[in-house]
């Protein structure tokens, strides 16, 4: 049995998590003090084994899980009667909740999928629940090109946007060859420009320092010359000095002490490059603000993952090239022909979110695709794609349809998806992790299973209308 200290620690985590992430689940915190014990669950582990365990859920998180977990004899209990339990499924690339589908107008790196998400679309959320899906990644999808930032969304009764800057999404799948080339060139150029911007900022910083040094030097010389000529106008100097009291910026202080002749310029904005003093240095020009480039820089500096929508081998090659050139970590979304580039993807340490592909890729042997990717140890998961009507639906079915075998299919839409998406509390049932889980009518990896109950943040949110009806 775990010590008291440990469970307190877990509860703290749970509370912290609920404060940060799950504001709508506030009332669940009251239950959190005691916790509810779910008995006799057949949990399918990520490796495909089935373990009979009990699970203590406190508030929105799992407090303890294991075969010997027992709650207080008077605490609330739910007997799951030996039903199969999995973590809530993850739809790793979904257009669910996107209001009105995706726009056809231009988008930019600064746009966010979260801005287009209707968190109150309970029809869509219920639809996802009945498919066992409790969390999704909603990529930004606009025109081919840099599309914006995707969002990690947890399907609580009113959807919770857990991260509205989860990843930078780029579409390389233009409709025609010329469009694809143009889009790729455009994206690469944008990254190049972003890097140039960073360089020019670095240069500016350096130049600014030099400029200040030079100015200081010039000032010292001027002061020296003033000392040599004590008949200079001291009053002007003092007056200017008072005005700038409290201003630490050396450049300005220096400027204010330039001398009586420069006073006219003092209240003007940034009177740079003062050429009144022939010996004064030229002030470097500050590069203008560029929020779109800043987003790309976040990606380049590894603070923002990059997910690139590409299906054909040509587009995936472009994506790999782009990732190398820009120095970003690579995730391919779509990936109909990703198996053809499995080695290159493995070398680039890329991961893949498979989605249903356009019809022109229908000839591909899906099972071969997935086994090739798995053989190359490429991190893999599955999404429902870019049709908002299919968002959050049939993910397990699609994982199998996209070629995963019975054992892998579940991992692809739970643990592996959480890994690829960088959402550590998703996709697994463990201490301190989200209490998002699905109780199934039968083994979900085999045919004919239906969700029986769906729990999100420890609350029962959906129950099958046909609950209780068994299958063979």
């Amino acid at each position: 049995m775990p010590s008291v200290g440990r469970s307190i620690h877990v509860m703290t985590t749970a509370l912290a998590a609920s404060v940060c992430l799950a504001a709508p689940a506030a009332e669940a915190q009251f239950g959190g003090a005691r916790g509810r014990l779910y008995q006799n669950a057949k949990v399918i582990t990520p490796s495909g084994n089935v373990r009979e365990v009990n699970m203590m859920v406190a508030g929105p998180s799992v407090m303890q899980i294991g075969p010997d977990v027992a709650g207080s004899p008077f605490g609330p209990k739910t007997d799951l009667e030996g039903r199969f339990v999995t973590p809530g499924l993850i739809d790793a690339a979904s257009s669910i909740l996107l209001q009105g589908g995706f726009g056809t107008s231009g988008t930019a790196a600064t746009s966010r999928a979260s801005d287009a998400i209707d968190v109150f679309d309970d029809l869509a959320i219920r639809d996802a629940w009945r498919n066992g899906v409790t969390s999704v990644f909603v990529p930004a999808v606009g025109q081919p090109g840099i599309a914006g930032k995707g969002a990690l969304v947890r399907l609580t009764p009113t959807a919770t946007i857990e991260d509205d800057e989860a990843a930078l999404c780029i579409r390389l799948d233009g409709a025609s060859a010329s469009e694809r080339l143009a889009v790729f060139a455009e994206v690469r150029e944008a990254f190049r420009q972003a890097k140039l911007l960073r360089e020019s900022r670095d240069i500016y910083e350096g130049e600014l320092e030099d400029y200040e040094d030079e100015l200081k030097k010039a000032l010292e010389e001027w002061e020296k010359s003033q000392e040599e000529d004590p008949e200079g106008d001291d009053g002007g100097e003092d007056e200017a000095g008072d005005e700038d009291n409290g201003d630490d910026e050396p450049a300005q202080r220096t400027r204010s002490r330039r001398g009586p002749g420069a006073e006219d310029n003092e209240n003007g904005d940034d009177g740079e490059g003062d050429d009144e003093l022939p010996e004064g240095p030229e002030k470097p020009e500050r590069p203008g603000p560029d929020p779109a480039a800043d987003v790309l820089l976040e990606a380049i500096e590894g603070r923002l993952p990059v997910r690139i929508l590409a299906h054909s081998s040509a587009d995936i090659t472009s994506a790999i090239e782009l990732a190398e050139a820009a120095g970003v970590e690579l995730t391919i979304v779509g990936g109909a022909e990703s198996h053809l580039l499995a080695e290159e993807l493995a070398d680039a340490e890329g991961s893949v979110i498979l989605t249903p592909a356009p019809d022109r890729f229908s000839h591909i042997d899906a099972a071969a695709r997935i086994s090739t990717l798995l053989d190359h140890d490429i991190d893999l998961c599955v999404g429902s794609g870019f049709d908002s009507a299919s968002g959050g639906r049939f993910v397990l079915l699609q994982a199998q349809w996209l070629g995963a075998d019975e054992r892998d299919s579940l991992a692809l839409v739970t643990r592996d998806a959480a890994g690829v998406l960088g959402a550590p509390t998703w996709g697994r049932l463990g201490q301190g992790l989200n209490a998002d889980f699905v109780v199934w009518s039968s083994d979900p990896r085999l045919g004919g299973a239906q969700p029986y109950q769906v729990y999100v943040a420890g609350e029962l949110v959906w129950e099958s209308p046909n609950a209780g009806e068994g299958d063979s």
Partner: protein
Amino acid sequence: MNGLGVVTSLGAVAVFASSSLGQLRVIQADAVHVGNGTVHAPGWIAIEGDEIVAVGGDMGAMPSDDPEVHWGAITPGLIDANARVERLDAFAEYRVRGGTVLERVMRGVHSPDQVISCSCSGHALCPVIGTHEPLASEGLTCPVCSYPSHVAADAMAPGLISVDTYTEAASEVVPHTRVIDSVNIRGADLDRLVEGGVTTAYLSPDSTAVIGPRGAVLRTAGRTSRRVIERESDVHAAINSAPYFSGPSNNQPNEGSVTNRSRRPTTRMGVAWVFRKAFHDAAEFARGLTPDGADTAPTEAFPVLNEVRDGDVGLRIHSRALNDIESALRLSAEFGMGFTLLEGTEAYGLIPELREAGVPVVFGPIYMRPSGERTAFDLDFFLFTNEVGANKLDTLKTLIDAGIPTALSAQDLRDEDGLARQAMYAIRYGLAPEDALRAVTLTPAEILGLDNEIGSLEAGKRADLVLWNGEPFAATAKPVEVVVGGKTVVDRR
């Protein structure tokens, strides 16, 4: 949303129905308008099952010591004797049922090789038509109307299958078809009617054929399979400009290519000719001859036309302008037929003639600008022909005062322009309130031949009633409860 209200209340009814069946319900109200001119103020009404048991103003005679008290008026359920189903309501229905995900419902599951590209005007009705080309260039279908898939026709107008019109357009003479086949009797438009207090509706086809399909009489609520009161009602003829103005246009054969659009009418004269020839041919057909020549109606039409001539099947003629109403009177007299005049915007000019011919009128709607623009939407350009220049806002009063049996209809108008509001306009322009009530209850029931079942609050009639929040046709009036067949189908309390 209006539709949602109805859906919920229908759900509630299912529960309510089983317990209320056969149970006596007594409602006491500020005023009970019987519909025939009598008003009990205050009054009460008792219903049991789907029937009215008793109505009265004598509070002592009330069959219950503890009646429900309603602070407002009770009227019979309104009857629209010339309702038309709004084509664009497809979207309203899907918005209600699909929430924000209306495109799901619209989405066909056709594989690309089943998709037939089409530029039919069904797509032209799509509210997001501007996105069609960009979407199509990416090989995507429109999320609203599924352009370029032909499923669009269905999506644009569930129940109203045809692309431009729900009247069969293969011929100008199609009295053998029936509008009920093209109507979605689960449609949200009926929900909107009942929310406005309309409990019975005569569904008219549109007027794109000279002699169009037969109309139908429907209850606007209740179990859908039991809504239909009359499947094959009157034949709907159009003597106005719609047959050549609306729908796919008629024309002469193009370089020898004859289609079903190579035909009359393309003018007012053509309309009269097609009407006359149809009945003439029907008479020939009855004598065993085979009619032929240009513009001959399909053979199936003749038996129905003969029934019309014999008076076994009713005839309704839709005319707005004075000269069209004259044509209607002339043509019907030529074949010795009676008819019901629909819309009749300029009927005020033919009062003696109409009275002499014994023609009942289903007048309306009352517009500030007759057959003119009602909204800025392009669609109305096709629906309204601007053929009437001189309407009068007191025409309904003129007709009723002249003793012509006249009902009031809102046609395709709903909600704030619906039948109750039409009655309000009529009252504003001089009609007595009780006459206005009669024009939307008992008179239409008489015109439909259903006055022994509905139309007034009398013992033995069907319990169709509307409970208003105050006076029935005041500007602020709205139904707070609508009862159809004894069951509450709208409850706004």
